[in-house]
């Protein structure tokens, strides 16, 4: 009697010859590798270390150059009416009773640059989604640009978003549109005149340094280039507020610098920048305001903060 599974007991291997060449036995493959790790001479090791250090120093210098001038820290506390963003006891509970933000109060003034830091799951993206009214607060009051978002009618949400530029880790470009069309889309949704679009779009693409890529599709660009496109799109309206959720999360350290320099130039025009990030070097060297979240609560709010402590150095 043949029982279930019996046919696999002996000779379970398929009889047909494999289309793949036979793989060599593991021990022979291992024998092909050098038996010990390659030894570096002392001079070789020094050269590598020096190159790494140089690269790192260059990056740190680049970030430090974007730190505010001394004196800018000691600005007097702004009155409430200059707030770009105001959170009053904001709590966000996701379905399933997940508390992502817990009684958060925070004021961000016009023209400020704020880093949001904190471990994965601490609520940074939740805060950003609230600002864009992708989701609604569960309790408390959230005011953006002088308007209470809980009282904002659904028909007014597009208007809100046109006044907020946003840049994400995954770029969020429209895949079937060229660089030029992606940037133009942000103006088209507002019903801008064609002449104005034709004038502004090349200007802003030039600003982000992609003039030679206007007719390329997102999948034909590198990550850094795609992020430049998304920044161009975010800034083409000259919005008073720019929100970034890990804008350099997918980019290598050197590319990140270029992106940050772009955002820095945008902030210098008076735009408020709120940025969630995990980039320690960048936060430590730029010495901006740092709001640290932990388990949905603000655990630190430094005027010139570092990634983990106040005033690094």
């Amino acid at each position, binding site marked *: 009697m043949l029982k279930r599974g019996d046919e696999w007991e002996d000779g379970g291997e398929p009889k047909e010859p494999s289309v793949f060449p036979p793989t060599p036995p593991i021990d022979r493959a291992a024998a092909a590798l050098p038996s010990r790790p390659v030894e570096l001479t002392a001079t070789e090791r020094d050269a590598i270390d020096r190159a790494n250090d140089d690269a790192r120093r260059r990056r740190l210098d680049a970030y430090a150059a974007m730190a505010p001038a001394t004196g800018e820290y000691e600005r007097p506390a702004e009155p409430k009416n200059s707030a770009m963003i105001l959170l009053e006891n904001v709590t966000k509970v996701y379905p399933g009773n997940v508390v992502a933000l817990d009684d958060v109060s925070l004021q961000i003034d016009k023209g400020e640059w704020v880093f949001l830091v904190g471990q994965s799951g601490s609520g940074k993206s939740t805060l950003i989604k609230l600002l864009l009214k992708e989701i609604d607060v569960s309790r408390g009051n959230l005011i953006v640009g002088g308007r209470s978002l809980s009282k904002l009618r659904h028909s007014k949400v*597009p208007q809100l*978003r046109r006044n907020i530029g*946003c840049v994400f880790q995954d770029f*969020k470009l429209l895949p*079937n549109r060229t660089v030029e069309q992606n940037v133009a*889309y942000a103006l*088209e*949704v*507002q019903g801008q005149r064609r002449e104005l679009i034709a004038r502004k779009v090349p200007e802003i693409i030039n600003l982000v340094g992609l003039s030679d890529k206007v007719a390329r599709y997102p999948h034909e660009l590198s990550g850094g280039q795609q992020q430049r496109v998304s920044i161009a799109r975010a800034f083409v309206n000259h919005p008073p507020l720019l929100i970034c959720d890990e804008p350099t999360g997918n980019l290598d350290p050197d590319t990140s610098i270029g992106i940050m320099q772009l955002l820095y130039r945008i902030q210098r025009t008076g735009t408020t920048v709120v940025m969630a990030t995990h980039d320690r070097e960048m936060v430590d060297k730029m010495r901006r305001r740092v709001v640290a979240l932990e388990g949905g609560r603000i655990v630190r709010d430094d005027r010139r903060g570092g990634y983990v402590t106040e005033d690094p150095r």
Partner: protein
Amino acid sequence: MSSTRFRWFFGEALRSLKTNFATTLAAVVTVLIVLYIFGIGLSLGTYLKSYTDGVKRDLTIKVWLADSATEAQVGDVQKQLLADPRVDGPSLVYVSQEAALREAQKTYSAEVLHLVGGNPFPASFRVKARDARDSAAIARSVEGFPGLEPATSDLPNPDYGAKVADKVLSVARKVELVIGGVAVILGLAAVLLIGNTIRLSIFARRREVEVMKLVGATNWFVRWPFMLEGMIAGTVGALLAAAGLAASSAFMPSVFESAGTIKTSATTAAQAWPLWQIGALLVLAGLGLGAAGSGLTMRRFLRI
């Protein structure tokens, strides 16, 4: 919507139709199949309707009057018929013996009539019901009136062609019901199928919709190109269905030409709605299906 704005939306729709060619094709073929079947059903349905209408129109109640009937008796019969609200008053005609003979002379040869000799044809009232279904009741209401020719088993009096008419009408009613039912089911299936095709297309592009809304597009700004897309696909499918129907009409000429083989006793033969009319209806249906299909399915994806 200004015309430049419309042009922009239209361009968007065309572009998206091109980039999503596979889905477009699926939607067009769905509309094509559904509307082709619908068009065939509509042709046959209207043909049948026109046929039964012809039968109904020709359903005349004949009240044969005895040669011996007095003027008062004839007047009573006429009064009774005209007083009946189910009777179509203006249709009432009195056919005298002479008129009946003249009518017969058209049908029968002189020899036959000569053989019979004299004038064997009785005078009669001919009248129609407003609704053909009331014919039997009207006939019964004057049955047995004095002055009527006595009825025999194969020559009922009054005579409304009971046997033929009842058969035709009951069969026609059943066929009408079946065609109506099939049309309803087909319509539902069409909406579901098209809705599903469009949902697949939108579902594949929901991230795109998300991004559009994130940069400040209103719901209508996102919706318009999608709806135009549905309308274009629906119209193209409908045009193809109409073309297919026109080609098929060659195989059922009797349905579309008045020189049809099935003649009712009426002067005109049964005929379906003209092809151009059915074609226009299909195009309208395709347009509506496309717009409604995409408009309704969009709603779920716009809540961002």
